[in-house]
């Protein structure tokens, strides 16, 4: 094949630009940030080149590239995308130029800061496209170091604690996953770590359960799912603005991605039997996250806890084991990235001006800073899933699909939607309405650069909200294949139910 290895380029370009920044003089802040912006823009441009080559409607992996790495051990450099990873890769490459632009005025240690951002981008893209389990593990862990640096060096007052907590939580999950990967490798005949080579391994129920739990640990921490979510509010609150944005927009998605990519296809039986308790955890996360968010006096913490709640919806959608719900979960991951990323950016812009994130410090921002207020309102509406905006087109299918398979879970989750509207709008009301008081006095409105950062995000919120079809038509075939795979495995062990009719029909036709 003489085609351009586009996916590899998406990993290599940011890495090269990070290296380039490493070679530059620490004094030349202006050129460093320019190089960072160019690097992220070039990567975004290159990522758009995936779209024409990506066949819509195909469930499997496309644009696969491979190269030998450690042949003796069956470790290969193997990358490719399907509908799910496509969206997440695009989300990553889309958000990064905005992140660099948002951090345009960053001063302290600009060299390390922008190099970390680009290094992180290379690893994030790598995680989503890796189709070799060891390669996946490597990218999964590589992300730790730049993110640790972003939180630990450029974060808030309690940054050291938050950075170490983030690092160790992820490390534990990652190592358990590594052991499980090795177990799968030997169970599959010790030939290859390629994703598809391990797909059909025969495992006993006990093995499936334990391996599922090992993978689950890695991804549940990443999502994060209640009760292993405690690192997230710390990390979010202490991280610099762009760190929070990346964390919310991309890093948390790795958990949901991992569930869909590995947990469900590899351990269908365990996924089916363990789905109800996981749904309970998801619902606890939704309600608990919402309730704790309501009690926050710090707006950034509020958004951080709202992330716990939103990601609870994603897990709900995935483990509802229903095509509609799972597709909704993937779209919701993208939406959450856009919306929560935007919220963190707005809070960051505000904090840059007033150095306070305390809700009670503000009043009447709508009058003082109308552009800021307007953008915040739209974003908040998207976050509470107002129909017509992107939040709705993700959350609604999740609830719809979950209701088909686990009605009780859907009913419980609806309360989360109500609570979400409550805490965010309440905070909005306190900060933006009323007379101009406190720190709102004298606060300047957003400048052209900041509006430029927000504009693409707001446009996407509206665009996806009105016309989500392009997302769904790419995601659904992949998700359908995954969910049907789980159901088929369930048919083999359980009595056939309504859900497996489609799968059974497909079997008949073959």
């Amino acid at each position, binding site marked *: 094949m003489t085609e351009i290895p586009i996916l590899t380029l998406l990993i290599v370009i940011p890495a090269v630009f990070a290296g380039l920044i490493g070679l530059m003089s620490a004094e030349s802040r202006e050129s460093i940030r320019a190089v960072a912006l160019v690097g992220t823009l070039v990567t975004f441009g290159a990522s758009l080149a995936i779209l024409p080559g990506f066949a819509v409607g195909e469930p499997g992996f496309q644009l696969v590239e491979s190269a030998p790495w450690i042949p003796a051990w069956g470790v290969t450099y193997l990358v490719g995308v399907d509908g799910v990873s496509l969206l997440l890769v695009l989300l990553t490459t889309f958000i990064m130029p905005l992140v660099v632009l948002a951090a345009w005025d960053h001063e302290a240690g600009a060299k390390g800061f922008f190099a970390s951002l680009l290094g992180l981008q290379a690893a994030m893209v790598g995680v989503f496209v890796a189709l070799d389990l060891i390669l996946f593990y490597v990218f999964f862990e590589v992300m730790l170091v730049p993110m640790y640096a972003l939180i630990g060096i450029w974060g808030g007052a309690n*940054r050291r604690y938050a950075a170490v907590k983030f690092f160790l939580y992820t*490390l*534990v999950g990652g190592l358990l996953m590594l052991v499980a990967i090795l177990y799968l490798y030997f169970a599959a005949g010790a030939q290859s770590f390629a994703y598809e080579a391990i797909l059909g391994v025969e495992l006993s129920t006990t093995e499936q359960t334990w391996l599922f739990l090992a993978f689950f640990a890695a991804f549940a921490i990443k999502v994060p799912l209640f009760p292993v979510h405690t690192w997230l509010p710390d990390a979010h609150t202490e991280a610099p603005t762009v760190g929070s944005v990346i964390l919310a927009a991309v890093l948390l998605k790795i958990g949901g991605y991992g569930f869909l990519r590995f947990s469900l296809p590899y351990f269908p039986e365990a996924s089916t039997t363990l789905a109800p308790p996981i749904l309970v955890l998801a619902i606890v996360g939704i309600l608990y996250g919402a309730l704790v968010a309501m009690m926050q006096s710090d707006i950034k913490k509020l958004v951080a806890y709202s992330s716990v709640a939103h990601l609870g919806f994603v897990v709900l959608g995935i483990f509802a084991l229903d095509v509609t719900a799972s597709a909704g979960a993937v779209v919701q991951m993208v939406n959450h990235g856009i919306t929560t990323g935007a919220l963190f950016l707005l809070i960051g812009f505000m904090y840059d001006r007033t150095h306070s994130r305390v809700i009670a410090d503000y009043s009447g921002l709508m009058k003082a800073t109308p552009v800021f207020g307007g953008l915040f309102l739209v974003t908040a509406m998207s976050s509470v899933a107002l129909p017509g905006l992107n939040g709705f087109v993700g959350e609604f299918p999740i609830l719809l699909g979950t209701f088909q398979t686990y009605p009780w879970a859907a009913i419980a989750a609806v309360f989360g939607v109500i609570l979400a509207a409550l805490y965010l709008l309440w905070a909005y009301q306190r900060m933006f309405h009323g007379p101009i008081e406190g720190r709102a006095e004298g606060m300047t409105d957003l400048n052209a650069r900041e509006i430029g950062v927000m504009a693409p995000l707001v446009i996407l919120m509206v665009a996806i909200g009105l016309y989500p079809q392009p997302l769904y038509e790419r995601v659904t075939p992949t998700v359908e294949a995954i969910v049907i795979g789980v159901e088929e495995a369930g048919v083999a062990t359980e009595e056939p139910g309504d859900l497996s009719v489609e799968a059974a029909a497909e079997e008949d036709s073959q």
Partner: protein
Amino acid sequence: MTDLASDPTTVDLFALAPELSVVVAALLILLVELALTGERKRYVNLIGLVGVVAALAFTVALWADIGDGARAAFGNAFVVDAYALLFKGLFLSVALFVLLLSYRYFSEFRTYQGEYYVLLLGSFVGMMLMVSARDLVMLFVALELVSIPGFVMAGLRKFDLRSNEGALKFFVMGVLSAAILLFGMSVVYGVTGTTDLAGIAVALETGERLPLLLAAVLFVIVGFGFKISAVPFHFWAPDTYQGSPVPVTAFLSVASKAAGFAGLLQVTFVAFAPLADVWAPVLGVLAILTMSLGNLLALQQTNVVRLLAYSSIAHAGYMLVPFGVATATDAALNSDAFRAVLIYLIAYAVMNSGAFAAVTAVTRSQPSRLVADYAGLGRRSPGLAAALSIFLLSLGGVPPLVGIWAKFFVFSVAVEAGTAFGLVLAAAVVLNTVVAMFYYLAVVRTMWMDEPTVEEPVAPGKALGFAVGGLAVLTVVLFLGIGVFTDVAGVSTLVASG
């Protein structure tokens, strides 16, 4: 190996060339140092460098010469095969590195330069003999040749009480373990009637399992346990490491330990292979104890050298894991276990040497060696701080650094064993990796996130700067290119022949 002469008096000079060139260099240093005066004495370092480089060249030439076969001398007591050459290459590279590290340290230190270099090179000759030894007597001689110069080198800083204490502890423990080892070997000889490693394996295969024999096997393992500072024979390590000159500490924690592991590999996987069901569980339990105790004690250290000392004890624990899953029957598994130890040693040598090199650089401007001295190093000397971060994160097992492969192969062999004990070992490594990461990160955090207490940058000097930079690059490059070592054919032939 029937084609090789079995006459114990045959000497194959080419096979011995690497050892001989180091011996010649050592003797030359002894003579030349007498003729040099004052400042000039430091130039003896160059003689050592030349000798080591020549030995490396001979090693490469031998590698090309033997192909898939082997050369032998002294009636098969001394064998040069791919396994031995791989280790010799490793030892000589470390020797090169220690010489680079020593140059400025000992030219500033000014005393006993000639003696130091002779002892150092003598110890490396011992290591090279060790990996070629296929006979208990040869092994013992080699082990003592490694250890005894170590006792003296550890005590070189005579004016420092800590150095005296460290050297004395090292000596007492060393002599005790040597006695136990020798006693064990004598019983093994008494029972099997041979000192040849492969011959012992044959005798053990068929022979009766006398309780005395099993005890003797454990005695031999204890002797090596001291060398690799496995719990409970580790007490000497932190004090000795702290008291020794830093280049000596690097030597003890990397080369000397690797030699201990090489010896342990040879006796367990070759000579005692039929008794694996006896020694494997013992070493497995020692592995868990060693890594856990090493890490828990490392957590509490405020002195960087002591922290690295306990961390190196913990790493000995990880390296013992593959021994813990060895079996008497499954040759494929044994071969994989053997390879896991080998790859771990290579990775460990690179990253631990690097860490000690970086510490040496900082010690020069701040001799107290406290973790707190590293505050703000990222701002004072970003390059050095980045390199030390790379080494520490690699020791912790974070990709994209070579340390992850070390852990990977350990996990891999533990899972491959397919036993409950294997999974327990894997779980122990997971837990310990997380604990260890905590203190590695503490140092990294101090370097990058704390305010510097002094402002001036650290100037490591050319030789040391080259060593630190080169090892940092190697840590990354080996991550990508580890495949080179996974295919070393000779690695498994040693096990197969045993």
